[in-house]
């Protein structure tokens, strides 16, 4: 690098008769600093020579300036034949303004996630059957992106559909050791979680009525988790 710089310096040194004395090196350094700062593009030594007063030695000024900015928040960097000022790479994070917005997961996503957790490995068709509505691509994508679900083994059924399973991240987030730790319907009811009556017409009446299916559900779940 330094060698090349000096090569360029040669160009600048080529004797040009000058009526004026070159400004002191400190001044030249300031000039180079200002030009590099204000320029929209990297500046070559040749360009610097053209811009600065006769007899200036921008290559030397650059070397001084480079040293001066060592370890600072801004660096002097070489871009091809030219020089530019850039913010120090380790401070790149300051150039990003991150706003984190916490949003509740949508109902569709929660339900889909719950079905995957309780029934994994489960295919999309199975999820749809359980939810009674089709599962939008966006919902699954979102859960995949959040890394709460991932693809599991393909089912050995016609079409060999992909399955979904929950991830370690999912277990971490929900403080579970294992998807099998998820409470069954009976426990949910015991915990009073089913008392939340949905509005009439939503198709989910009170919890009192049917106990048979509850066991079924739990059974199905453990069955699924056994393999």
């Amino acid at each position, binding site marked *: 690098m330094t060698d090349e710089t000096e090569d360029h310096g040669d160009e600048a040194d080529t004797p040009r008769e000058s009526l004026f004395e070159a400004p002191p090196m400190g001044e030249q350094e300031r000039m180079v600093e200002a030009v590099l700062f204000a320029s929209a593009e990297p500046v070559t030594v040749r360009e610097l020579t053209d811009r600065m007063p006769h007899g200036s030695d921008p290559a030397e000024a650059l070397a001084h300036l480079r040293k001066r900015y060592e370890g600072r928040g801004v660096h002097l960097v070489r871009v091809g034949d030219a020089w530019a000022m850039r913010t120090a790479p380790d401070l790149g994070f300051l150039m990003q*303004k991150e706003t984190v917005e916490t*949003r509740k997961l949508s109902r569709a996503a929660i339900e889909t996630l719950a079905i995957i957790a309780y029934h994994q490995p489960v295919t999309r068709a199975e999820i749809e059957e359980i939810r009674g509505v089709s599962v939008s691509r966006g919902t699954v994508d979102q859960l995949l992106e959040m890394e709460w679900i991932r693809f599991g083994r393909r089912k050995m059924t016609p079409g060999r559909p992909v399955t979904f399973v929950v991830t370690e991240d999912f277990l971490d987030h929900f403080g579970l050791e294992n998807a099998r730790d998820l409470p069954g319907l009976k426990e949910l009811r015991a915990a009073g979680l089913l008392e939340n009556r949905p509005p009439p017409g939503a*198709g989910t009446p009170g919890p009192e009525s049917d106990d048979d299916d509850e066991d079924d559900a739990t059974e199905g779940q453990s069955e699924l988790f056994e393999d």
Partner: protein
Amino acid sequence: MNDEFENVETLSVSERLAAEALIVDVDGFEGPLDLLLSLSRTQKVDLRKISVLNLAQQYLAFVEKAKALRLELAADYLVMAAWLAYLKSRLLLPPDPEEEGPSGEELAAHLAFQLERLQAMRDVAARLMARDRLGRDFFARGVPETVERVRKVRYTATLLDLMQGYARIRTRDEFRPFVMDRDSVYTMEEALDRMKGLIGFAGTWTDISSYLPDGWDSDPVKWRSATAATFAASLELVKEGRAELRQSETFAPIELRRRKDDDD
């Protein structure tokens, strides 16, 4: 203005040139106050020591000259002229104690203030514009690095949400809207269809239980449904006048036959 020129045709060339110069002058001024400020400079004194009376006379002379050249001055120049004529008279005449309102001196002082203030604004405007200026004398960063605005949305859900979600789906399954389980139900429509096909052959009294479809007599649930449907269908046929029903005694088999006159 062009009309005015036609009127001045009789003037000498030098007069016309003078007139044109005056037009340019008037046009060059931004209103009477600007003209007054310009005139006041001819007094070559500090604006604070200016003689407003002299200034008023200068202005009125200017307006007279314009009139002589038949130049049309904008209305505000004439309003100013009228006001200055009034001011001049107030300044020249001894104050009348009867007269209300501000004195000539007060009016003159205010005009002087206005002129001084306008001049001051012009001076500072010039100083302002002569300052080192961004993009001319000093410069901003040539390659600004834009601050990337990363909007991260973090979705959250709790175990409770998850369990409630699951419970919601499961209970929705259990309590889905009531639909009859059709498997072991034989409807009257089905029975009617079947019997309409068979009745043509029933010229003699036949137990209606013989009309039960195949395979519906072994399962008690199915048998019950088929029997009820067949009986209801039989009643319907009687009502339509296509068949007759009879039962010899209570709990005896119910028999059905085609009505004799139902030939076709």
